[in-house]
Each structure stands twice: as C-alpha cells, then as structure tokens.
C-alpha cells in the first residue's frame, strides 16, 4: 500500500445542472485506479479550492457547460495558488469554444476536453501531468 494513489477532485462549478459528463469521467478515473473525490453540482470557486486543499489532490477536473468558463477557471486557479497549491493540475471538460482554448491554456489549464473526447485520452493526460 505504499504506492502513491493519484487523487482527483471532480467538481462542477457554476449553475448548469448537467453532471452526466462529470460522472462518466469520475467513473473512468476510478476504473483507472485513481481516487476520485466527487463534490456534486453548483460549487463556487471557493468551495472547490477549499475541497482541493482539504483533500490534498493532485488534479482538479472541472465540468463546465454553462459558458462561464472564462470567469470560473481563472478564479479557481487564483484561489489554488493563494492556498499554496500551485502544483495542482487543472483540467476542464465541457463546452469550450475553440477561440477560448489558447487563453485558458495560457492561464494554466493543463487540458481541455469537449464532446467526443475519449476517457482513455483523459486518463493518459492525467497520469502524464502528475508524473
């Protein structure tokens, strides 16, 4: 039991109520042997950063379908940094317009996944990111 388990927080910030995608990803990461902390719907950036701190996760996965990603993502990155968790890698899944992707990556988002992304790809990227 001495191997380091990858711990992932899967969270849904903002007000849209569709969490199917988040659940599919949570399940896929579980089946890849990771420990996934699932927070449920309608989380504020503050709640997500607090949970990431208490759970000492390696990765935060955000599911955003509401279009509010350009407001939510930077706020969450800022709070993680403020808490001293600069090393935490943040991924986003959901509906993200192509033109926003470069800016999100610049801010420090590690990976972005839209409809049709494969869970194998996500698992591989998460493993790669926490090496």
């Amino acid at each position, binding site marked *: 039991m*001495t191997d380091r388990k990858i711990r992932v927080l899967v969270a849904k910030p903002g007000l849209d109520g569709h969490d199917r995608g988040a659940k599919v990803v949570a399940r896929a990461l*579980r089946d*890849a*042997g990771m420990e996934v*902390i699932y927070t*449920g719907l309608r989380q504020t950036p503050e709640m997500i950063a*607090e949970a990431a701190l208490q759970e000492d996760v390696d990765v935060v996965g955000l599911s955003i379908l509401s279009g509010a990603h350009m407001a939510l993502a930077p706020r969450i990155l800022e709070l993680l940094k403020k808490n001293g968790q600069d090393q935490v890698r943040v991924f986003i899944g959901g509906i993200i317009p192509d033109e926003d992707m470069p800016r999100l990556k610049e801010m420090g988002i590690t990976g972005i996944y839209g409809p049709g992304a494969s869970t194998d790809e996500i698992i591989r990227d998460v493993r790669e990111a926490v090496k």
Partner: protein
Amino acid sequence: MSLTKSILEGNRLALARLLTQVENDLTEGHSSLAELFPYTGKAHLIGVTGAPGTGKSSLVNQLALQYRKTTNKKVAIIAVDPSSPFTGGAVLGDRVRMRDLSGDEGVFIRSMASRGSLGGVAQKTASIVQVFDAAGYEIIIIETVGAGQSEVDVARLAHTTVVVEAPGLGDEIQAIKAGILEIADVLVINKADRPGVENTERALRSTLKLGHPVKRVFRHHGKTMAVDAPTTDPHFWIPPIVKTVATEGKGLNELVEAIAKHAAHLDQSGDRVARDRARLQSEMEILLQGALMNRFLEHIPQEQYGELLEKVFSRNISPSEAVKFLLNGNPK
C-alpha cells in the same frame, strides 16, 4: 518550518499534506506522527456507521453544523468510502452531502478510500484521527463505508459509536443478530418522516430490552472482542434511540445531547480510559504483526518461499503445515 510545527499552529495545507503522507504510509509521515503523538488524546471521537443509504453523510453534515452552531470546537470529518477490489480506484462521494459546511474554517473534511480494508474504515484511519486530534480538532467524526452486519472496526476507534438505521430495512431477527447493532452507543433512526418508523423503533427497543448489559471494551483486531460477564450495574449504559430527519435538520439537538450524555458516562464509568488503552494496545499490536512479518520474510530466501507456495498450490501440503515449516524448518 517543520510540518508538525505548522500543523500545531493551525496551517491547513500542512495538515492536508501530512494526512496524505500518513495515508500513504511514507517515512516522513511516520516521523511527523511520532512528533505529534504527545499532543493527542484530547478529542472526542464519534463513529457514524450504518447500511448504505440510511443517510450517514447527511447526518454527519448536520451533526457537524450543530456542533459549530453550539460550541467553539473545531470539527474534523473523516469520510470513508470503498475502494474497488479490482482496480484499487474509488469514487469518494460523501462531500456531496456536506456542502453546508464549506466556507467554515473550523471544519475540515477528508475523504478516505478503504484501500482493501474490510472493517468499514481504512487501515490508516486511526493514524488520520491522531493527526486531527493533535491539530486541535476536538470533535472528530468518522463516517464508515456503508456497513453491512459485521463492519464493526469503528467501535474500536471511536469513543461514541452512532449506528444509523432507517425505516424498512429489516425485521426483529435482523435486530437481534450480533454485530453492528451491538456496537451502538447511540441508535439513530434517520428518515423518521418515512412510513414504518414505529415498527423500526419497536424492533430496536425490544432488542435493547432483550439485551444483557455487558461491559464493552473492544480489543484485538479480528479476534473476539473482550467482554466481561453481564453486569447488573444500574448505572449501565443503555443506548438511547434518537429519531432524526437529517435532510431537514430535525432531531439533531437530541442527537448531540445523547452523544454528550454518553461522553459523560464514559468519564464517570472509567470506560473512556479503558477504551483508549484498548485502542492503543490493539493499534500497537497490529503494527507489531506487520513488522514481525516483514522482518521474518527478510530472512527467508525468496526461492524457498516460492517453492513452498507451489507445494501449497499443488495441494501437497496445507497452508498451516507450510507455516509450521517456515517457523520450525521441518515439514509436519
């Protein structure tokens, strides 16, 4: 600054980091835990257990809220969920029901995967409790995995064990079986607004009446827990039954009161000391078992060990003969 010093000063990031080290059984974690150990022993440990879907997480959420409303004590929650026996992965979902607690610096919630442990809590839960205790969390709530009948390890860990039932889960025969109901210091019937609550209460009450009071000090892992002969002591603790509706916060005052009464009973009867001692002894013995096993295996050539295993696999010798051979050097 050292991790332990930061933790004693209330640094939450340092606390979270140490919890990870301890959970992963890292050497740094061991030494920090050793430094913190003298600061432990102040918290009241509340175990919350019960079948899946009885509302444990919602109840823990409300219980923590209630403590935060009525006391200045910091509250830690350790929420254990099962690991997959096949992949080792886990989805830890207890936080979903605990969103009311976010934003309160006096509450710290940590999810834990059971990582192969079968007793309802993880192997490292006891050590995680010690870290929170040293960090000044005076109320520590341990929520077990959804428990069946025999996941009773939490009773060795906690001062007060709360067993959560819900209407419609079983008849009186379920209630007189040994196991999970026996470890209750406080019985909660959650979802008490549902039909059938009277039947559940009647069944539990009659079970309590049937019971011979026994002194309960939980000892050795996996072995029979030590039980003294039935007592006729009139001050004997009889688990109260508290009805709650956790989703609406109903019955929580009564639950906090029942836990406080049990805590007072532990102090007066001397059971708190007895339970603490039994817990530390069993913790030490479990560690000793592991350490002895490791040390022993170091002295056995892998080849020889493999050959012996093969003989067991091919049914040439039995596992117990193999153990005798390993210890004494001659088969049979």
